[in-house]
Structure formats: C-alpha cells, structure tokens
C-alpha cells in the first residue's frame, strides 16, 4: 500500500512533466500540422539557456526561466519565418523532413557548443524531501508541477480568451475565411510556432534542474510529447494535460508492478489500445481542428 501511494505520487509528478512537454507540441503538430521532430531540441535549448543564465549569468531562477522562454520563442519564430513559410504549400512530409534536418543540426550544434558532458542546473530549492506519511517528494518537483499547471492554464486562456487566440483558431480551422476576415495568416503561423517552441523551452528550463542538461536530452522528451499529443487529441490542451498524467502514472505502475525493463512499453501499449478503441484520442470531442 505504501509502495502504491509512492508509485502514484511518482506517476503524477512524471505525468506533469509529460503534460508540460505535450502542450507546446499539440499547438505545432495539432494546429499547424507540422510533424516537428525538432520539438525536443527546443526543450534542450530551454535547458541550456537556463543553464547559461543561471550558472554563467548569475541571474535569478525565475529570470532564467523567462530567458529560456524568450530564447525558445525567438528561435521558433526564426525557424518558422525562414524555413517553414516558404514551404507552406508543400506536403506534410516535406516540412517533416526539414524539421528532421533542423533536429540533427541543432543537436550536433549543441554538442559542439556545450560538449557532451551533462550540465547540472542549479536551483534555489532545498534538496531534503517533503515527507507526507509514507510518501516523499522533492520541493523542486512540487514547484515544477505548480508552474506547469500555471503554464497550461495560461496557454488555455490565451487560445480561448484572447484576440490572438481567436485568430489562431480561426486560421487553422478555415484559413481562407480567416484571411477574408482580415487575419494576417503569416503572422499567425509565426506566432503559433514561436508560442509552441517557447513552451518547449519553458519545459526544458523547468525540468533541466530536476534532471540534467545534455545534448541528446530532447530525443526521449520529443517521443513522449508526441504520445501525449495523440493521447489527448490533436490541438487539445486539456487533453494533452490529462494524456500526460495518464501516461506518467501508467508507466510508473508498469515499471513498479510488471517489469522495469518493459517500462516504456507500457506507454506504447496504451497508445496502441487507445488508438484502436478511440482513434481520435482519448479526450477528443471533435475529429480534428484545422
């Protein structure tokens, strides 16, 4: 029983990190229909930006996270403007291939700049765990969970309650009508990609201190993010959140009670089952936006 409780708490914390990874991608992949293989690299970028600001620049932790978000947004905007905009008329495979190239180039660029040695990102929280009966959890993890919830809520509000968000939804639902209504389509594309990339960078800055920063850290993160997005339904922010939590808890229980060697298989099997039984995602209300 004690063990089960600890497993559930672990799963919740892990699921929170998956949700954070998934929300940025659900915009880029779900709304814009770009199979963004470089998403994990924006996560890595966020972690390294936070490391640079904290360890080298000596700024406050919150400032470092903001710096990472800024770096992610800037590079995301640049990426969309230079690489994706000219290819917007091409098929989804073509843009996917470009993003594969960006993925490989960015990861090896990071290896060149930072070296292969993992960086530990300092954080201001005590390392002694919070103990609640049989369960213990690190204070940093609680903070990350809270901030992730905040970021997800803020993104939801931005998409559903602001003018920019309305323009985004309109653009990806019916591009021509949106254009007729005076929405500047190109700007919306750039803004959406920058926003999704900024969220990935935020995830990197928040999770970097929990784990470590190293050049290939984005690979597994991106794979999990794709799973979360599909589980939750494309473009569905609350869905991605629930999908992340579900995946985290399922993996944790699978590793705890089935076999740790098959840990990642648990997530894969759930995805296969969900897709076979509910092909449009676990929490989707409509087939697809955009």
């Amino acid at each position, binding site marked *: 029983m004690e063990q089960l409780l600890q497993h559930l708490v672990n799963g919740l914390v892990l699921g929170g990190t998956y949700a954070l990874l998934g929300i940025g991608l659900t915009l880029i992949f779900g709304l814009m229909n770009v199979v963004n293989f470089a998403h994990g690299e924006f996560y890595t970028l966020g972690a390294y930006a936070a490391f640079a600001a904290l360890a080298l620049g000596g700024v406050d932790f919150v400032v470092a996270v903001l710096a990472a978000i800024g770096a992610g947004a800037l590079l995301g905007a640049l990426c969309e403007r230079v690489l994706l905009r000219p290819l917007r008329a091409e098929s989804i495979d*073509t843009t996917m291939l470009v993003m594969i190239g960006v993925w490989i180039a960015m990861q090896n660029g990071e290896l*060149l700049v930072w070296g292969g040695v993992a960086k530990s990102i300092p954080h201001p929280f005590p390392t002694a765990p919070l103990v609640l009966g049989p369960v213990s959890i690190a204070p940093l993890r609680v903070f990350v969970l809270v901030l992730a919830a905040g970021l997800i809520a803020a993104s939801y509000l931005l998409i559903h309650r602001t003018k920019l968000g309305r323009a985004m939804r309109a653009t990806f639902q019916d591009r021509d009508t949106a254009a007729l209504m005076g929405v500047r389509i190109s700007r919306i594309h750039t803004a959406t990609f920058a926003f999704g990339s900024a969220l990935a960078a935020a995830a990197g800055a928040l999770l970097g201190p929990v784990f470590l920063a190293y050049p290939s850290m984005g690979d597994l993160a991106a794979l999990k993010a*794709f799973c979360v997005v*599909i589980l939750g339904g494309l473009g569905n922010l609350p869905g991605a959140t629930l999908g992340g939590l579900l995946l985290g808890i399922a993996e944790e229980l699978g590793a705890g009670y089935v076999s740790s060697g098959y840990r990642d298989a648990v997530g894969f099997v759930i*995805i296969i089952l969900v897709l*076979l039984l509910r*092909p*449009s995602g676990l929490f989707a209300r409509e087939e697809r936006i955009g």
Partner: protein
Amino acid sequence: MIRLARGLGALLALTLPFWLANPYFLHVVIMAGIFGVLALSLNLLLGYTGQLSLGHAAFFGIGAYTSALLTLRLEWSFWLALPGAVALTALAGWLIGRLALKLRGAYFVLVTISFAGVISLVSVNWMELTNGPLGLPGVPAPELGPWSLRAKSAYYYLVLAGVALSYLVCARLVGSRIGRAFLALRENEPLAESVGVDVTHYLVLAAVVSAGLAGLAGGLYAHYTRFVSPEVFLFTYTVTMVVMVVAGGKGTLAGPLVGALLFTALPEALRLATSWQWQMLAYGVLLVLLVFFLPRGIVPALAAWRARRAS
C-alpha cells in the same frame, strides 16, 4: 535517352566490383543497396498509399533477428532463413495493417512508432530468445554450394539481386490495377471508396508487401555485418529511411534508390571531408538545404527539369 541511361546504369551495377577495387567503397555501396531495399519498402506505404510508417525499423529488425536466429539456433541454411524472415515480417505487416487500417495520418504514425517501440523493448528484455542487449554475434555468411559469399564482391551481387527483386515487385505492383487503387486512395480516399475500391484490402496488401521487403533488407543486413543487436531498432534507422524516400522523391520508383545511394554516401563522404565534430552538423544543414531547394525530392525535380527543357 532514358533507355540509354538505364542500360548504362545496369551495366555499371553489374560490373561494379571489377573496377571498384577499393573494399571500403564497395562496403558503402552494399550498405546503400540494403537501405535501397528499405527505402523502396517504405515508399510503397508513404509514396503510394500516403501512409507514413515511423516504425519501419521494427520490420527491418524483425527480419534481421529472424534470419540470424534461424541460422544460429536452428542451423537453417541462409537460403531458407531469408525467406523465413521475409514471411515473418510480412505476417507482422499484416497484423499492423489489420490493426491500424482504420487510422490515418498522425494516428497511423503513432501506432507504427509504438509497435516499433514495443518490439525493440522485447528484443532487449527477452534474453532467452534474443540474448538481449548482448546481441547475436557470429551470424554466418551465406554459402552457395561450395562457395562462401563472405567476400564483399560476392555479397554485392546478392544485395544487387535483392534490390532488383524489390524494384521489380514494386514496379509490378504499382503498374497494376492495385497500384492505381493505391494512388486513388492517396489522392482522395472517400472518392476511391465510393467507386468501389476496397480500401482496407489494399492498405493491408501494401503493409504486407512493404513489411516483407523491409524484412528482406534486415536479413541481408544480418548476414553481411554478421552481428545483430537491439540497435537495429534504433529510431535513427527509421529516420534515415524517411529521409531517403522523401529526399529522393516519394511516389516514384527511382526516387528511393537515388535517396538511398545519396544518403548512405553522404555521411561517408563527410567522414572523408571533415573531422568528426562537424560531420553530423553538416549532415543536418545539407538536409535542410536539399529540402529547401528541392522540396519534392531529387527525382521529381529532375523530371520537371527535363519536361521544361523538352517543351
């Protein structure tokens, strides 16, 4: 003109080991051939039915493991083990096709990724069968009567035969009524269905043939490197296949082969051209530039260029 180029190409391929004496270059060509079969296989799904499989390394790996295990554990001859590997991967393709046939686009992609993930974990954890992460060393080189095909030049012809067979299978399939059904499916599925194309049937067929060819490539790989480990399921292998198909020109027969040759030679050329720090970085940048200037792939770009010159 085209016929002349084709004839020259065939002559080149058939006589290659005689004038390309350097075994390192021959090695690169053999790897390109194995990846050529893989690219043809992926192209059948991606290029002709429009379904992207990001789990194709699973079929490659299943083929490699099956052929290696059949020769190592049951001491089958290579000539029986290879068809065995093809049959088992085709069966796996049928299973995935049946399971995922209702899914389209991103959802199909995810099922294939997950399938590959599960299979890869099985190869790591099922120690009794696969020897786990320790891999299977000592996979025998094929023998033909009294001759061993261990020598590179001999193995080259084996791979060449594999490529030719895969190409013919694809060409026959695509040129037939089935191929037209594939295209109808890709272009407009509801329309295809409304005129009586049995969508399910054709998708499963494409998946079976595609998986079988990937299994063939896996078997050829296992007996060439003579070592199989769970790394055959690496996601980078799938990514490499996608790059080859899309950059070469999806939905064309020659495209995947051109892509396979180019993207097997490129990393090796970069090995010669620059030190290790820059190789993968340059690979990524070159890939971006290629897509940027030839978004539809090399072969379609060449065809368009020829059409423009003719008019």
